[in-house]
């Protein structure tokens, strides 16, 4: 029995027990459902072992939406707790755990998964490839992400959640102040999913550099692909820093080293420093693909080509480098002199310039265009003013001397939600709606979608704009309650109402999927939006091999040219197509990683050793495996093409 005591929750409450029951029942329901409908084989063959970039992309997106739900519940709980003064819905410890998991779940497991899922689905189609460069590695990336996400999500029912903030600053996160295993979960969940992300970075750089359709030079790539390339370059350079910082943190917590201690030659500020050396580029990893989505959507629905293609590319390249020059602005107040603060203040303001260039390019794309107010376009149009407000408050925060007033207040919280929600969340919803027919062959209902957009936008404004005011009035972030005399009460109530509206928006968006699945007409054709880039030159939903014939391209909007300017996309004759085989190794290996991480969290060394052997066994199996892929025969291709109603 003693062995199991370590899994107990240090700080239980009825809410957590209810969640335990909920999780247990859900797992049982899923197992029974799969067994009853005899779907285990289907699940294994079609999804768990797949190496198809489209399916992996979809699994990323589905996971991201689940995580959006989890992180959203955390968010609502925080707004509910602070809605009125001296509230007792959550106590201080629970509030700490909730804001910590909210941050990590939303950034690492929701936003990252969403952008990587979107890249997975769209990039190979946009460059006319059959898959990514390393399909097997891609599956490993996803399953490592998934293992990390699940590891993080069980923390609150087994052993206790991390509670030192998503930034996890030492020495608070050290064993002196965080005795439970919560921070160990943080270290290993991020480590495992971070490895997956790093592999994705390498995979996509190679894919984009090596597998473009004939004629597609770098400067003829669609803008979303450009943004994916730059994003992955940043991933490859930023994520190793996180890997090492997490490893050092693990050593500090579990092996008694003193990297981040304030004694014995350690330096507590080193964690904050390393965290933000990764953390600031991470912000741009999130926002650049969003910019890519907006570029595609705005060009399509303005019926114009993207204004300032070269300056768009140039500003992204500039951002990719400058994103590594600004990290100190996250801790202006932590004791360095005016010289350091001055330097990083200037670099931070400078990075707003290339971002501003992009805003003007989108405005000028819409200028004199024939704008169609579809759901993706509404999100894009809503993004521009809201994101600009977030950007301008960012420049306010960049003024180091003024930051002494803003630092660690709700003003900061309002700022980063103001860039991330209209930036990333709006973009992902726009992209999801835009590419939905590509994924499933039918369209999402526009009317429900518009209701969702308005609930989300108005809810967002109500939820976060009051925080600017309470923040300037001195409401600190991460404070679990406040007294009525502070006067923060009414504005926090407004904020809660906004959060509730955003929750309704989420329900509407999910309901829209259900509604459209049941009632939307199929056979929407291959180009329902009158779009411009290459991914629309194949069928909806996309067949396994993407394009029956490799397209040939001579501009960044090859599909538009083929519609309007008599450009011939498909010149070659059809022939058999070489595709990679499915494999169960990635998911099994990620399972070992999960056991490895879980055992490590609780310092169960025998589990760690067994899981590590399992991981190496999977690698060895892959090394000696003889797998040359398979061919899709010409006959099969002809049949598929015929089923889609005769291709060109």
């Amino acid at each position, binding site marked *: 029995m003693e062995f199991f005591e370590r899994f107990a929750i240090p700080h239980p409450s009825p809410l957590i027990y209810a969640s335990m029951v909920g999780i247990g029942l859900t797992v049982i329901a899923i197992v029974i459902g799969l067994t009853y409908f005899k779907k285990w084989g289907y699940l294994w063959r079609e999804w768990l072992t797949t190496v198809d970039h489209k399916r992996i992309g979809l699994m990323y997106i589905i996971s991201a939406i689940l995580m959006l739900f989890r992180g959203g519940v955390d968010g609502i709980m925080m707004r509910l707790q602070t809605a009125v003064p001296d509230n007792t819905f959550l106590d201080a410890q629970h509030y700490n755990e909730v804001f910590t998991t909210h941050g990590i779940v939303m950034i690492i497991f929701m936003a990252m998964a969403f952008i990587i899922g979107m890249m997975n689905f769209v990039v190979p189609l946009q460059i006319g490839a059959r898959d990514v460069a390393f399909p097997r590695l891609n599956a490993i990336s996803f399953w490592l992400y998934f293992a990390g996400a699940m590891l993080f999500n069980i923390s609150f029912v087994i052993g206790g959640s991390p509670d030192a903030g998503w930034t996890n600053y030492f020495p608070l996160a050290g064993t002196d102040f965080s005795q439970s295993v919560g921070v160990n979960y943080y270290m290993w969940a991020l480590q495992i999913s971070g490895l997956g992300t790093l592999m994705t970075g390498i995979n996509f750089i190679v894919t984009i*550099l090596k597998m473009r359709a004939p004629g597609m030079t770098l400067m003829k790539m669609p803008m979303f692909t450009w943004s994916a390339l730059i994003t992955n370059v940043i991933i490859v350079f930023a994520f190793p820093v996180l890997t090492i910082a997490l490893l050092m943190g693990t050593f500090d917590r579990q092996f008694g080293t003193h990297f981040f201690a304030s004694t014995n030659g350690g330096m507590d500020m080193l964690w904050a420093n390393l965290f933000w050396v990764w953390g600031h580029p991470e912000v741009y990893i999130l926002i650049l693909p969003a910019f890519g989505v907006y570029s595609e959507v705005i060009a399509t629905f303005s019926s114009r080509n993207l204004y300032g293609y070269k300056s768009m590319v140039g500003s992204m390249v500039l951002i990719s480098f400058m994103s590594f020059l600004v990290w100190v602005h996250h801790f202006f107040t932590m004791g360095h002199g005016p010289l*350091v603060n001055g330097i990083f203040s200037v670099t931070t303001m400078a990075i707003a310039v290339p971002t501003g260039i992009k805003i003007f390019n989108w405005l000028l794309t819409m200028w004199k265009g024939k704008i169609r107010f579809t759901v993706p376009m509404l999100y894009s149009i809503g993004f521009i003013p809201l994101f600009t407000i977030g950007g301008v408050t960012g420049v306010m925060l960049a003024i180091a001397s003024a930051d002494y007033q803003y630092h660690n207040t709700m003003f900061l919280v309002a700022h980063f939600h103001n860039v991330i929600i209209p930036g990333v969340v709006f973009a992902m919803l726009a992209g999801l709606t835009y590419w939905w027919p590509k994924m499933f062959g039918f369209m999402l209902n526009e009317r429900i979608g518009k209701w969702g957009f308005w609930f989300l936008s108005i809810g967002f404004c109500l939820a976060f704009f009051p925080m600017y005011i309470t923040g300037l009035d001195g409401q600190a972030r991460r404070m679990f309650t406040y007294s009525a005399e502070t006067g923060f009460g009414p504005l926090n109530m407004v904020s809660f109402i906004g959060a509730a509206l955003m929750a309704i928006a989420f329900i509407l968006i999910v309901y829209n999927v259900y509604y459209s699945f049941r009632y939307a007409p199929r056979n929407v054709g291959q180009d329902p939006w009158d779009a411009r880039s290459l991914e629309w030159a194949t069928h909806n939903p996309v067949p396994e091999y993407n394009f029956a014939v490799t397209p040939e391209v001579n501009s960044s909007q090859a599909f538009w040219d083929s519609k309007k300017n008599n450009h011939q996309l498909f010149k070659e004759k059809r022939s058999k197509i070489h595709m990679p085989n499915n494999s169960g190794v990635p998911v099994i290996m990620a399972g070992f990683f999960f056991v490895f991480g879980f055992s490590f969290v609780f310092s169960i060394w025998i589990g760690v050793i067994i899981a590590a052997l399992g991981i190496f066994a999977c690698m060895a199996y892959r090394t000696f495996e003889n797998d040359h892929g398979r061919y899709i025969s010409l006959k099969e291709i002809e049949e598929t093409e015929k089923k889609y109603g005769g291709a060109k």
Partner: protein
Amino acid sequence: MMKELFPIKQVMGFVFSLVLTAVALAVYFLDMSFQLGMTILLVTAFIQAALQLVFFMHAGESNDKNAIYTNVYYAIAIALVTVFGTLLTLIWGYM
């Protein structure tokens, strides 16, 4: 003909990398100050890395030459920014 049979470039690179190793090893056996020793180690380490990249990992010999070198220079720039920025932030510029 002779050139194909005898890769003079690689052999020279191999000899040079052995020399660099010997110089680095000398730091251990010779009695010198910590600063001088570290300087020698750092300089030989970076030359060694560049050597390996060019001669034995064939960085400049394929069509990807430009992509590879752009990547290397970008990596060096970011590493320098990170290292010196960290030193500036945590040591030199700390009040």
